[in-house]
């Protein structure tokens, strides 16, 4: 309701939020890996507050691209399932799901989280494609952070199945090796309502959102990807503030991942 949006804006000016959280406070975060253990080679269910995102990896064996005969591929896809929110039934703009997938993908790709040469089975002939499929089950805001965390958790706990040279197919019951991550980028998003910067917005808060900035950082603190969203502008100072405040959030995400998956 517009009344709620107006109140959210007013309260934000005073550093207050509807649910009583601080501006920088995140909701409860839960990560469960191996959620899909029979048909997927790596998976994670992430909950941030009531937002629920499921990521499942599917590994396929394919021919490499001509210009990269020794490299495998990563493909990221995101489905905003109609069950996730009432207004999804009439279909969210397709761009939303595409943007989500691409933002999540960019963090992983630019950080070179996976060495694509690691995915090569037979040069020029057979390489692995890692499909990262995100399924948004319940949207109560902050999808980018939840989806990125789920993707990272799935990759960290995922494996590549063995390749049977005789039948030229994958033996999904046998593991060739764990997916090795050279680097673990973490992606978090800072939001802006009026002139106030805040973190982990709920679905209700996002209806009053003016702008958001997503930042992906590696362990060494370098930024590998960014994305600005929504319709209003940021000042350079605001962006710097988000990049700085991101560190605390990223640290929290790393700790949660470590607790669930290990180093």
């Amino acid at each position, binding site marked *: *309701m*517009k*009344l*709620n949006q*107006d*109140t959210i804006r*007013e309260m934000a000016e005073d550093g207050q939020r*509807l*649910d*009583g959280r601080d501006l920088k406070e995140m909701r409860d975060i839960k990560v469960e890996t191996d959620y899909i253990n029979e048909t997927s080679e790596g998976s994670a269910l992430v909950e941030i507050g009531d937002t629920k995102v499921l990521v499942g990896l599917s590994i396929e064996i394919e021919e490499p691209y001509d210009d990269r005969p020794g490299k495998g591929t990563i493909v990221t896809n995101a489905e905003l399932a109609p069950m996730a929110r009432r207004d999804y039934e009439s279909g969210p703009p397709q761009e939303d799901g595409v943007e989500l997938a691409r933002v999540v993908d960019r963090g992983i790709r630019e950080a070179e989280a996976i060495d694509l040469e690691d995915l090569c089975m037979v040069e020029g002939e057979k390489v692995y494609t890692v499909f990262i499929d995100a399924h948004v089950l319940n949207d109560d805001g902050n999808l980018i952070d939840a989806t990125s965390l789920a993707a990272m958790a799935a990759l960290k706990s995922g494996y590549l199945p063995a390749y049977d040279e005789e039948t030229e197919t994958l033996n999904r019951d046998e593991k060739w090796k764990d997916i090795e991550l050279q680097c673990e980028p973490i992606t978090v998003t800072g939001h802006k309502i009026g002139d106030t910067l805040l973190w982990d917005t709920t679905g209700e808060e996002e209806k009053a959102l003016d702008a958001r900035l997503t930042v992906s950082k590696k362990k060494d603190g370098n930024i590998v990807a960014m994305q600005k969203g929504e319709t209003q502008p940021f000042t350079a100072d605001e962006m710097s503030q988000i990049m700085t405040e991101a560190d605390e959030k990223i640290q929290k995400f790393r700790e949660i991942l470590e607790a669930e998956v290990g180093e």
Partner: protein
Amino acid sequence: MSRVKEEDDLVTPGDLITDADALSAVSGAYEENNKIYSKHLGTVHYSGQEVEVRPMSGRYMPSEGDTIIGEVTRVSYSRWTVEFNSAYEGSLNIADATDEYVDLDEDDLSDFYEVGDAVVIKVKSVTDGMDVDLSMKDKRCRKLEGGRVIEIAPSKVPRVIGKQGTMVKQINEKTNCNIIVGQNGQVWISGDRANLAARAVKKVEREAHTENLTDRMSEWLEEELEAMEDE
């Protein structure tokens, strides 16, 4: 006469409640082969010769006489359209909105209510085809400013209000808030401790079917207030 389910029992769709005999099934229950069954996941209530099942959940169905909270979504030539969290929307005609004289060609209806306004409004009439007419002509009706609106299941509204308003009054007093509960499950809350009041309302909704709720809510509110003092 044999009752399978007693007053306040939890039932699920297709559960046998009682032999029909002299009883008749009203809302939430139905009769077949001289037996009364439940249509819902809900609680059984006997009242005189009637058997009903009150569902645990379900979106609002507009009913004449209800006072509800809604939002103006359209301003037309001679009326406003109001949505209120239902499959059906309502119409507010000028005659039901104001006693002032309105010249349709000169005056702008937006001067009274514009798109986005939240209102407490009354359901004047509902046809079989679910055409809903609304009215602002009741002392409780008004435009809402500030505060927040939260949602509860319409079937839990009576419990949140309480017998003669005791439950909502208790929450009001302890949180120093102003609360208006719409029959459609939209609840407006305004005040400094609005967040606590909102949590209290949701707690009543969740535990509506339990006993001693009024006392337990009193205790819970005290505890929460103390915890807030300590911060």
